[in-house]
C-alpha cells in the first residue's frame, strides 16, 4: 500500500490541529492553575442543611452568594466553583491562615457547618521555576535524543524528524488544553506537566521503533526509492504501532471512565497524547523524513 503518496494529507491533518492549537495558544494561552499563578485554593464542604435542598429546585446557595460573603471580608476572590456535593472550591489571592479562619467562621455563621477539605497556598515563583526547569530538561533531552538517534541511525535527518514529531505531539496536547481552557475553563496544573513529559517519552519511543524498520530497509536495499522503503516500513510497523497503542489506550480509557476524579483530566491528557504520538510516528515523522530526503535528492540532481 502506498502510504507515502498521501503525505500532504497527513501534513494537512496535523496542520489543522497544530494551527488551531497554536492560534488558541497565542490568543488565549493556557489557563494556569494556582500551582503556577500563586494564590490560595480553599475547598470547603458544607454540611447538608435546609439551605442545600439538592434534590429539587436547585441549590439555595449560589456560587455568587458565597463569593460575595467572602469578598465582604476584603479578600479578592477569583472564582468559586462547585466541585462536588455541597463542596465548593474558592480561588483567591494568597491569604494568611488567620484570614482563612475568619472566612470559615463567617461562612459557618451564614450557611452552617463547614469542613475544610483542602487548603493550598502557593507563591507564584515556585510554579515558574518548575516550568523553566522542566523546559530546560525537555530542551536538553531533545538535544541528547537528537544526537543519539542521529549517531545510532547514521543520519541526522532521523534525529531531527523524531524531535519534530515529539514537538508536534506536545503542541497538539498544549493546543487542545488551551482550547479546553478557553471554552470549558480547564486549568493546567503541575500534573499536566507530568502528562506532557509522559507524552514526550512515548512519542520518541514510538517514532524510534518505526524509524528502526526504515533504517534496516535502507541498509538492506540500497538504491531502492525512499518512498517504497518508507511504505514498506510503515506496512511492517503499523500493526505493531496500533496494537501497542491499543493496550495503552485500554488502560487509559478504563482509568478515564472509572478512575478517580483527581486524575481524570490527567488521564485525558495522556489519552490525547497517546493517540497523537502513535499517529505522528507513522504519519508525521516518516513522511517528513521522506519529504526531506526527496528534496535533498532533487537538489543534488
Amino acid at each position, binding site marked *: 500500500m502506498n502510504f507515502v503518496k498521501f503525505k500532504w494529507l497527513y501534513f494537512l491533518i496535523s496542520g489543522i490541529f497544530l494551527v488551531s492549537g497554536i492560534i488558541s495558544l497565542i490568543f488565549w494561552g493556557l489557563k494556569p492553575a494556582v500551582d503556577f499563578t500563586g494564590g490560595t485554593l480553599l*475547598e470547603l464542604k458544607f454540611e447538608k442543611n435546609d439551605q442545600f435542598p439538592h434534590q429539587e429546585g436547585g441549590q439555595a446557595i449560589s456560587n455568587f452568594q458565597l463569593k460575595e460573603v467572602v469578598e465582604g471580608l476584603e479578600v479578592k476572590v477569583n472564582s468559586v466553583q462547585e466541585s462536588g456535593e455541597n463542596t465548593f472550591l474558592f480561588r483567591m489571592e494568597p491569604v494568611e491562615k488567620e484570614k482563612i479562619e475568619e472566612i470559615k467562621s463567617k461562612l459557618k455563621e451564614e450557611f452552617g457547618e463547614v469542613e*475544610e*477539605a*483542602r*487548603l*493550598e*497556598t*502557593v*507563591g507564584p*515563583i*515556585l510554579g515558574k*521555576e518548575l516550568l523553566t*526547569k*522542566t523546559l*530546560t*530538561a525537555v530542551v*536538553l*533531552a531533545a538535544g*541528547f*535524543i537528537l544526537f*543519539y*538517534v542521529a549517531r*545510532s541511525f547514521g543520519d541526522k535527518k532521523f534525529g531531527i524528524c*523524531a524531535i519534530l514529531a515529539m514537538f508536534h505531539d506536545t503542541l497538539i496536547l498544549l493546543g487542545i488544553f488551551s482550547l479546553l481552557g478557553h471554552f470549558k475553563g480547564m486549568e493546567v496544573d*503541575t*500534573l499536566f*506537566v*507530568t502528562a506532557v*513529559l*509522559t507524552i*514526550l*517519552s*512515548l512519542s*520518541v*519511543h514510538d517514532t*524510534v*521503533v518505526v524509524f*528502526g*524498520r526504515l533504517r534496516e530497509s535502507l541498509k538492506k536495499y540500497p538504491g531502492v526509492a525512499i518512498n517504497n522503503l518508507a511504505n514498506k516500513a510503515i506496512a*511492517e*510497523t503499523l*500493526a*505493531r504501532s496500533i*496494537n*501497542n497503542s*491499543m*493496550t*495503552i489506550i*485500554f*488502560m*487509559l480509557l*478504563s*482509568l478515564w*471512565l*472509572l*478512575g*478517580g476524579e*483527581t*486524575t481524570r483530566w490527567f488521564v485525558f491528557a*495522556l489519552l490525547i497524547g497517546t493517540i497523537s504520538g502513535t499517529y505522528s510516528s507513522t504519519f508525521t515523522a516518516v513522511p517528513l523524513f521522506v519529504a526531506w530526503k526527496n528534496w535533498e535528492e532533487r537538489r543534488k540532481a
Partner: protein
Amino acid sequence: MERYRKKLLLLIFVLTALAIFVDLPPEWPIKIDLERNILGKEIKWHFEKAIFRPPLDLKIGPLKIKNDLETKLGLDLQGGTHLVLQAEMENIAEEDRKTALEATRNIVSRRVDLFGVSEPVIQTAKVGEDYRVIVELPGIKEVSTAIDLIGKTAQLDFREAMTATPTSILDFQKTGLTGADLRRSEVRFDPNTSKPQVGLEFKDSGREKFAEITRRNVGKTVAIFLDDFPVTIPRVNEAITDGSAVISGEFTLEQAKNLSIQLNAGALPAPIKIVEQKNIGATLGSESIKKSLHAGLIGLLLVVLFMWAYYGKLGLIADLALFIYGLLTLALYKLIPVVLTLPGIAGFILSVGMAVDANILIFERIKEELRIGKKWSVARELGFGRAWDSIKDANICTLIICFLLFNPFDWSFLNTSGMARGFALTLGLGVMMSLFTGIVVSRTLIRTFLTSKEKK
C-alpha cells in the same frame, strides 16, 4: 543453549517467588464462609486465618539489610502537609549560606521529629539566589500547628551549673549568653592530637559576657543548650577573654561537624519564610486510589485479553511475562523504596506500555519471519534478534529523558525535587526492568513452552 535455558528458567522462578513475597501486604487476612445445603445435608465450613509477611531483616556478615517492605505513598496519595520554607540570607556572608541552609534543615528536621511524623521528607534546595527547605509531612492535617512548630526561630543559650556535679538539666541556670552573641562556629583540629574540635567565635557583645561567665566557672561546667536541650556540656579549664573558645571532647569528625552546624543554626539570624503550603486531604487521595486501582485492574485485564485474542499462545506467554514484570517492578519499588505519587504511577503505567511494546515488537518480527517461510525455531531466534535493535534504541531515548528529569547529580539548572522526579524514577526503573523481562523472561518462556511447532 538448553542448559542455559534451564538455569534462566530457574532464575525467573526464584525471582518471581521472591517478588511475590515482597509484594504481599504485611498482613493478609483470609476469610471463607461456606453454608450450603447439599442433598438435604447442611454443610457449614468456616475458615479464618491471616497470613503474616515478616519484614526484611537480614545480616550477611557486615552487611545489614533492613526494610519493612511497606508501600510508601506520596503526599498526593495519602494526604498531608507540604511546606516550602525560605531562609532569608541577606545578613549572612555569601560563603556561609550553604552551611546555614544545611543548619536550617537540621533544625527543621529535629522539630519535625518532635512532632512525631512518620517518614517525613525534608530536603534543601537552592534555586537561583533563594535557599529553601522543603518539608513533607504525611498524614498531618493541621497545617497551622505544623507551621507554628517548624517556623519558630531556634534558641541557643549557654547555661552554668548550679551544683558542682550536675545530674540533670534542671541543675543549670541561664547566663544570658545566647545564640545572638555567637558569630560563628566551625570544625577545627587539635594541633597536638589532631582530634576534631568545635571552635566558637563570639561577637563583641558575647565576648565580654563569655569572659565573665568563664571567669566565675573555672573548673566547673558550662552547658550549651539548643531549644532547651543540652547539646554539649564542656568543662571550663580557664577564663576565656578573647571571644573565642574551643569545645574539645571525644568527637568523631562527623559529630564535630554536626555540632558545629547546630551551633551555627542556633546562631542563625536568618528568619524562615513560608513560600508555599499545601494541605492535601487524605480522603481525596484514598477514594481516588481505590477507584483508580479498580480501573487499572480492568484495563490490565483488557490488555491481557487483547494480547491473547491477537497473538494466541504467544500472547498468553507475553501476559505471563507481563505479570512477572508487574510483580518484579513493584517489588523493586518496595525494596528501594520508591515513594509512589500520582506522577510516579503514570510513569509505571507508561513503563507497562513499553514492556508490552517490547513483546509485540518481538512477536510481529517472529510472524514476519514465519511468513517468509522460515522454520519456527529459526524465526523465533531471528525475531528476537531483529526486534532487539529497535527496542534498545527506543528505550535508550526514554532513559535519556528519565535521566534529565530525575537529575541524579542535583544539577541546579534542573529540578531537584518534585513530581517530575517521581515520574522519571518509576519510568526509568520500569524501562530497565522491561528490558530484562522483555528479553530474558519472554524469550525463556517461549523457548520453554513453544517448542511443539517444531514437529510440524
